[in-house]
């Protein structure tokens, strides 16, 4: 489904970034999510793929968006991948060093337009699991837990999940609901999930394949995932990120 092999993005000599399949895959998922962001929005950014979404938003698609991290860092320029929400690389580009209470309060007040999250699993209800997984051998694997994921999911005006294309991550019912898609008040909850081939919306309360890259196949994708999703009648075909964007992703991810 993904024709962008490593050889397509061989280094041009100036940039020393080795473009791997992994980078391409992350760039595709992040670009799909970043297209959902509108300019001037305030984004609450989780660690991992969400940071690349924020980077694409800020540096290309929505240059006036405001980035907030759960550590309390605000008005951040996200130029290289942070390993934690308090990493020095983002602390040094933040225009405000607030507290965790400050930024979670912003969430609770309804001032976060979009929460950007990843998770171990997402299900057809839009619930997210970051707590435990059962391996094929039946062993329970304990994951690091919610962190702020539960809170972001309940309190952001809208949540966009970003996931790798691993089919074990898309399920009908997550094993453990860490972050329930039960938003507070009239907030929107989990609006959709972006992955390296496509974007599913939850507009009807169930996943609908809404957008797909021109080099991916909708039926094959829907088939490959472990969940009951439908293909939208108005499926939008999106051009995948190209050389320049992939390079950008490579540079961004280099330090992680």
């Amino acid at each position, binding site marked *: 489904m993904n024709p962008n092999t490593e050889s397509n993005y061989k280094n041009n000599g100036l940039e020393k970034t080795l473009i791997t399949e992994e980078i391409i895959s992350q760039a595709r998922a992040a670009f799909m999510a970043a297209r959902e962001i509108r300019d001037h929005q305030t984004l609450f950014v989780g*660690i*991992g793929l969400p940071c690349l979404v924020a980077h694409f938003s800020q540096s290309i698609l929505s240059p006036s968006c405001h980035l907030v991290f*759960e*550590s*309390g*860092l605000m008005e951040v320029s996200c130029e290289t991948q*942070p*390993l*934690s*929400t*308090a*990493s*020095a690389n983002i*602390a*040094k580009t*933040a225009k405000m*060093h*607030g*507290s*965790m*209470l400050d930024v*979670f309060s912003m*969430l*609770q007040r309804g001032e976060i337009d979009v929460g950007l999250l990843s998770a171990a699993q997402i299900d057809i209800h839009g*619930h997210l699991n970051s*707590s435990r997984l059962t391996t094929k051998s039946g062993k329970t*694997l*304990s*994951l*690091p*837990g*919610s*962190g*702020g*994921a*539960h*809170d972001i999911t*309940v*309190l952001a005006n809208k949540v966009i999940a970003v996931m790798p294309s691993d089919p074990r991550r898309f399920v009908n019912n997550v094993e*453990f*609901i*860490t*972050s*329930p898609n*039960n938003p*507070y*008040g009239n907030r929107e909850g989990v609006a959709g999930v972006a992955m390296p081939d496509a974007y599913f919306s939850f507009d009807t309360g169930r996943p609908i394949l809404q957008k797909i890259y021109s080099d991916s196949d909708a039926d094959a994708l829907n088939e490959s995932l472990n969940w009951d999703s439908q293909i939208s009648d108005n499926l939008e075909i999106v051009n995948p990120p190209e050389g320049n964007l992939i390079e950008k992703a490579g540079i961004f991810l280099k330090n*992680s």
Partner: protein
Amino acid sequence: MIDKVMSAQQAVKKYIHNSNTVFIGGFGHAIPFAIAHEIVRQKKHSLHFVKTGADILFDLLVAGGCASRLSCGWYGNPGIGMSNIINRAVDSGKLVLNESTNFSMILRLHAGKLGVPFIPSPILANGDLANSVDGIKTMKCPFTEVQYQAHSALNPDVAIIHAQRSDMDGNVQLWGSVGDTIEGCEASQKIICSVEEICEKEEILLSPHLTKLPAHKVAAVIKQPFGAYPSYLHDYYQRDESYYAEHTVNTKDNLKSDEWLRSSVFDHDDFDSYLKSLPDKLLAKLAWSNS
């Protein structure tokens, strides 16, 4: 004048008692490793640690047998993965893990800071955590009758933190990313603080906006350069990324964990001795000016 300046050894001995509830300062930044080393070295036990997420410092305290209970929103190695040590301790029944969310932990500490019994919030009303989390109770808003979760106050016995500097009275200055440090410290009965530098009062008076902790709660001030190593301290030193990268492997089984604990804590009389055992020029390379 009460003399608050002391060694980590004295401070831990004097102010951290078995069965205490202990708040851990720092968040990704300014994590109080030196004080934690001393807690492990003194074999304190049955401690209840409360914190949103304390990075791999949790691992140190759990591996050292100091923790009987952990109340947190997250545990693991940031950006790398889960905690082998905590998972093993929970599996073997040595550790009770109260999983929560970061915001619930903050709200509970903030209620403690405010001196109120609880703060209402809509979080943890649904999902599987809602059924298992400690310290919350469903209630109705007396004005609107809408249902909220009351998040009950946490007031730890003692907070351990690392900061850039303090004067001898305990006017502690901390900057950079503060996370939940201030909430947790103010909620606690007393604060034990290690700092890079002990400065004159005059320096504090030039920058009172950097003072983050009220001196009357600071029980001990410990001069400990690199006291947050291997985490970073804004304007002082960078994070030792390779330490974190190797940590998951270094703790992958009990044998390796014990060796890690021995070589980093038990082989040393104090944190300075540990720092001296680090590879040549490592600390110099981590200087903030190189970042």
